[in-house]
C-alpha cells in the first residue's frame, strides 16, 4: 500500500509539472521585468528617457534660442539596429519622441514615414467639393525641422557555458539640417548578465 501511494504521488507530481494553466497578472507599466535577457520595453523606456534628458540639457538649445529666438524644431530620423537581436525600433523611436515632446524644450514634427499620409490628407482636403472651405488646411504650411536626431543601437556579447554578458550601446546624434553640423552626441550603455541553468526538475 505504501509503495502504491509513493507511485501515485510521483505520478501526480509528473502530471502537475506537465499540466499547463494560464495565469494573468497586471503590473505597473514602469515595473522592470526581465525574462530572457534580451532588449525589452524597460530598456527602451529607460534609455529613451536618459537620451532625451541629456540632449535637451545641453548648450545647443540655449545657443539656438539666443540666435533664433524660438524653440528648435526636431525630427527623429533613422535609427539603425546593429545588434544581433531583432529589436522593435518603433517602440524605441516612440519612446524617444514621447520624451522629446514631454521635455517641453523643443518642437517636434512628423517623420518622413508619417508625412506621406499627412500630405495625402491635405491634398484630399484641398480637392474641391468635399471639405468645408473654412476648415481646409493649405498645402505648403509645413514647419521645416531645424535638427534631425539619428542613431544606432549596438551590442557586444561575451558568452561561455550558458552564461553571457551583453553590453548595449545606444549612440545618438543631433545634426543641424542646414549645415550638417553635429551639435550633440549622446552615448548610453546598458549591461546585462544572463545565466541559464543547465538542468531543472
Amino acid at each position, binding site marked *: 500500500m505504501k509503495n502504491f501511494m509513493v507511485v501515485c504521488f510521483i*505520478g501526480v507530481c509528473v502530471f502537475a*509539472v506537465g499540466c499547463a494553466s494560464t495565469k494573468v497578472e497586471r503590473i505597473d507599466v514602469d515595473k522592470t521585468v526581465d525574462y530572457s535577457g534580451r532588449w525589452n520595453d524597460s530598456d527602451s523606456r529607460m534609455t529613451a528617457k536618459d537620451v532625451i534628458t541629456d540632449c535637451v540639457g545641453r548648450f545647443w538649445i540655449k545657443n539656438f534660442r539666443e540666435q533664433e529666438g524660438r524653440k528648435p524644431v526636431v525630427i527623429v530620423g533613422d535609427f539603425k539596429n546593429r545588434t*544581433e*537581436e*531583432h529589436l522593435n525600433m518603433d517602440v524605441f523611436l516612440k519612446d524617444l519622441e514621447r520624451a522629446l515632446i514631454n521635455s517641453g524644450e523643443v518642437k517636434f514634427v512628423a517623420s518622413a514615414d508619417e508625412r506621406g499620409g499627412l500630405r495625402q490628407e491635405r491634398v484630399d482636403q484641398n480637392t474641391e467639393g468635399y471639405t468645408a472651405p473654412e476648415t481646409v488646411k493649405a498645402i505648403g504650411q509645413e514647419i521645416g525641422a531645424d535638427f534631425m536626431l539619428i542613431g544606432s543601437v549596438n551590442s557586444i556579447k561575451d558568452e*561561455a557555458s550558458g552564461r553571457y554578458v551583453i553590453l548595449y550601446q545606444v549612440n545618438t546624434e543631433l545634426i543641424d539640417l542646414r549645415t550638417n553640423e553635429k551639435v550633440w552626441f549622446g552615448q548610453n550603455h546598458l549591461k546585462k548578465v544572463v545565466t541559464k541553468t543547465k*538542468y531543472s*526538475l
Partner: protein
Amino acid sequence: MIQTARISAEDKAPVEHGLFLIMSMISWRFFRTIVICIFLCAVCSSCASVPAVQRRLRRLAAAGDFDRAVEVLARLPEGSYGKNNQLLEALDRGMILHYAGWYRESIAAFETAKRVYDELYTRSLSKIAASWLWNDAALPYPGEDFERAMINAFQALNFAAIQDYNEALVEARNVQSVLQRINDRYQAGQKNVYQDDAFVRMLTGILYESTGQRLDLNDAFVSYKKAVAGYEGHFQDDYSLNAPDVLLENCLSLAGWMGRRDLDFYQRQFLDKTYVSLAERASRAEIYIIYYHGQIVNKVQGTIVLPGMDGLLTRISFPKYRKAFQPEREIHVRAVSPEGQEKEIILQKAQDLDAIARQNLENRRLRILAKAVARPLTKQILAGAAEDVVRDKKGQTVGDLTYYAANVYLLYSEEADLRAWETLPSVISIGRLILEPGAYDFFAGKEKIASLAVSEGDKKFIMHWAAY
C-alpha cells in the same frame, strides 16, 4: 489488456490452462500492477519518435507541393507535433513556408524555433530519467548544431527576400554568436566535427556587403576570409566541398577594397582568379541564385535483438542514415532581357546537408550506442527485480506473466530517436549574375523561376527548390 472468457464445467482445464490462469489472476493487486505499468509507460513516452504529421509534410515537400503543404500547416493547430517536438514543428513550418515563398510567415516560425532552441538549453532531469525508463522520445528534440546555424541562414534569406536588409544583417550577426558557441565546444583543429559553417559565413559576407557601408564591408571581408578558410579546411576534408567561384570573386573584390597587401595575398592564393571590382559591382545589379536540391536524407532504425539476463530478450536500437543517391547535375541559370539578351551561369554546390548530417551522427555514434546498450541493461535489472518480487509474492504463474510483460516492455520500449529536421534540402547550390539595370526573366534549364526588375546597386536573391 485483461480479457475474460466463460468456460463450462466440461471444458474446465487443468490449473496451467491459460484462460483459467487469467481469470484467477484478476485480483485488485494484479490489476493495480498492470495499471501502474501502463501509467508509467504513458508518462514516459509522450509521443512517437517521429510525428506522423511530419511524415505527411515531408512527402508533400518531397513532391514540391508546397501550396498543399502550407494548407496542411494552416489547418494544423499549434502543438500538433507533440510537446517534445516543438522545435521540430517550428523548423518544418519555417522551412515549408520559406519554400512556398511565404517569407513573412516563415520569419515568425523561425523566430519561434530560435526561442524554443534557447529554452531547450535547460534540460529537464525528470525527462532525462524518463528517457532511461522508456526511450529518447521522452526527451524534447534539442536540434543539431548545424540545424541551429541553418535557421539563421534561412531567416537571413527570408529578410533579404522581403528586402529588409537591416534585419537580414541581424541574422548575420546572430549566426556569428551561434557559430562561436558551437566552435567553443571543440578543441582547435579537432577533426570530423561541425565546428563552423563555410556556407553560412559566405552568406553572411554577401549580406554585409549589401549595405555598402564601410563598417559592414569590413565585416563582409572577415566573413569571406572565414568562409574561404572553412571551405579549404574542414568542408573540403569532411564533405568534399570546394569554395564556390562567387565566394572567391567576392573575397578578391573586398581584398581590393581593403588594400594592395590583401589583394596580392588572395590573388596568389586563388591562382590569379578574375574578379569584378566592388565599384563596378556597385554600378550594376547582382542577383544571387540560391538553389535547393531535394530533401535531406532521413534516419532509419538499426536494431539488434539479444538475449539478456535471466532469459529476458532485449533490443538495442540506434539511428542511422539510409543510403541516398545524390545525382550530379549541372544547373544552368539564364537571365533573359525583353530584348532577348541572355546571360548564363552554372551553379556550384555550396552546402551538402546530407554529408553534414551523416558526419554529425557519426560523431555522436559512440555516445548513442553507449546509451543504447546501457539503457536496456538498466531496464533488464529493474524488470528482473520486479519479476523476482512478483514471483515471491504471487507465485510461479504470475511471475511467468510478469516475465512475458517485461519482455514486451524491453522489446517495445527500445526505439531509436529518428527525429530530425527532415524538410531541409539535401544540397544547396549558389551562383551570381551581374547584370545591367533592367527587367529580366530567369530560367533554370527550361523552367522559369523568377522575373525581376533590377536597378543600379541592387543585390537581390532568388530562392528556388527542385527535386533535383
